């Protein structure tokens, strides 16, 4: 690890500056994670589109024109539909519905999961048994078919209704994780101490326990938003939610029902699908950022190969004793110990 070159660089002025920089940015450590930062930037972009989309859209998404099924051009960036509607405008306008349903369903489901998970973990006893049985039932029942059944029974399911249905059916995973974590926190010394000093149960939960669950709650929220966006788009795609409101699923619904594939109109379904994939990736990246923030071990190690003084390279891995491989011997050899062992073997 101590190649002469590295000691030289340590003397140069950059050395101390580099060492000092992380300490200053303690508070922004989460944002400094490249995965989380990328995810947050993309998410912010989609939020911006959701707000200003309907104003910057060049055309009315439902307005018909004489340009039927046209490939992307300067006038219609993403091409047009069978009625001459501008797909670029549809994607822009549709963003609002997608983000609204995703975030609202995420908030509802997260609130429910915190309520059910934390109280089940903290109360214990019969209440815990009942609540965790309830969340297990919701976990095992296939969520998407349930959402489809409920949404199709409600006449004219709009964005708000869809968000409610998704939020009310997809809290179980978060509740389960939160319950497990609360159970382990409940018996920690500092909680016992708070109880001994006579703090009320409510105060223990909100001040002592909830702050320690922040990361889990956040990652549960992001996960639910991913699921909600997917479910909403699916509902629109199979034609359950009202098709008068534009979202990315509605575009795909029309593309599928008008045989866009058979007509070779790839521009009809590619932009909406890519938008879904990019949004989903951004949210997953935020979740990885949270995971790695909580458990640094999961970080994908950057420069793991280190040169030793005698010119060998060795890969550093967390939890592993680095093993030097000598070019003469095929099998990995621990530098000093194995040699003496070999000698001992030879002597014996």
């Amino acid at each position, binding site marked *: 690890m101590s190649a002469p070159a590295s000691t030289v660089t340590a003397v140069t002025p950059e050395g101390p500056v580099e060492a000092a920089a992380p300490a200053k940015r303690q508070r922004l450590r989460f944002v400094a994670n490249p995965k989380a930062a990328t995810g947050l930037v993309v998410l912010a972009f989609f939020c911006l589109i959701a707000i200003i989309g309907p104003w910057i859209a060049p055309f009315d998404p439902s307005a018909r024109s004489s340009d039927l099924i046209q490939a992307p051009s300067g006038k219609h960036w993403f091409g047009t539909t069978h009625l001459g509607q501008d797909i670029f405008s549809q994607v822009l306008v549709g963003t609002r519905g997608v983000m609204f349903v995703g975030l609202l369903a995420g908030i509802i489901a997260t609130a429910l999961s915190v309520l059910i998970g934390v109280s089940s973990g903290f109360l214990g006893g019969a209440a815990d048994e009942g609540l965790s049985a309830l969340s297990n*039932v919701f976990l*095992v*029942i296939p*969520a998407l*078919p349930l959402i489809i059944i409920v949404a199709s029974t409600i006449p004219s399911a709009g964005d708000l209704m869809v968000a409610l249905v998704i939020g009310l059916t997809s809290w179980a995973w978060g509740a389960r994780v939160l319950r497990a974590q609360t159970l382990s926190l409940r018996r920690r010394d500092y909680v016992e101490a708070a109880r001994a000093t006579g703090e009320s149960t409510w105060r223990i939960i909100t001040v002592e326990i909830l702050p320690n669950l922040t990361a889990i709650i956040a990652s549960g929220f992001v996960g639910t938003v991913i699921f909600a966006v997917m479910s909403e788009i*699916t509902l629109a795609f*199979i034609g359950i939610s009202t098709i008068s409101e534009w979202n990315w699923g509605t575009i*795909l619904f029309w593309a599928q029902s008008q045989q866009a*594939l058979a007509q070779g109109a790839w521009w009809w379904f590619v932009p909406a699908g890519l938008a879904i994939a990019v949004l989903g990736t951004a949210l997953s990246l935020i979740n990885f950022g949270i995971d790695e923030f909580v458990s640094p071990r999961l970080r994908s190690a950057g420069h793991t190969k280190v040169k030793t003084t005698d010119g060998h390279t060795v*890969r550093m891995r967390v939890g592993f004793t680095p093993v030097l491989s000598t070019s003469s011997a095929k099998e990995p050899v621990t530098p000093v110990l194995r040699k003496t062992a070999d000698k001992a073997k030879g002597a014996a």
Partner: protein
Amino acid sequence: MKFLLQRIAFYLFTAWAAITINFFIPRLIPGDPVTSLINKFQGQMSTEAIQSLYVLFGLDKNASMWSQYIDYWGQIFHGNLGLSFTFFPTPVSDILKQSLPWTIALVGITTFASFMIGTALGVLAGWRRGSWLDGLLPVTTFLSSIPYFWLGLLAITFLAGTDSFFPSSGGYEPGLVPSWNGEFIGSAIQHSLLPAITILISSVSGWILSMRNMMVTVASEDYITVAHAKGLPERRVMVSYAARNALLPNVSGFALSLGFIVGGTLLVEIVFSYPGIGYNLFQAVGAKDYPLMQGVFLVITMSVLIANLVADVAYLLLDPRTRKEG
């Protein structure tokens, strides 16, 4: 054994809950679309069939909720799920009996294969952290963010076609009659390849990631260090020491996320017009065929419960601790 009995009791409870939810959904929501459907088919339905729909959807306003519930259970036990309106006058149970094997073959095999492949890749990615395998993670994240059905659409556009090896829709060649002969099975496999690849690509990444994270966690345990120190071959430490222990949470995760996965895979059937349960659901939604929808939901839920039970048995075989307690 105690573990298994507990799980069976839980699944019975869940089955009861699912059927009860199914009972209440049409009753709690205002308006009864089924009545108009019954009126539409008035002349063609036997009184018996109408009666069964009345029981299923609570159209008989005179009966108390409790007696409706009892009647409902009686009918479910007889396998009577009413008549389908889309495929009038075929009973729902007959339609499901036809399409269930297709779904089990496609979704069952691909889900299992995706779990195995994903776990194997995850073991490697977790063990060789920092190597090129880490570069796989962003790619798989992107692939898993793509909705299954959209990937299916892309696959049809680029891979299927009139002169392509891959057919774009259906479960078998239109002229063939379903039977157990070589020609039919060959055709069925050819038709299922593209949907299977679609499901595999979008579902495998979740397993890679969770297995990688478990491997990374397990790799720094003391027993791994000891295994290294003993001078065991790297391969043996990776497979029999690290992977074996990292596998357990992944297996229970598999059981828990089955419900999510199956929901997504049903959509692939829709895109490929594959003759399974998912496509039935799509047809039912399009035609507002409530009896078929409810039947599909029940069958999916029951299949997922059984799959869960199988996963639990696997867990029991893998984890000696659960056997000891019994």
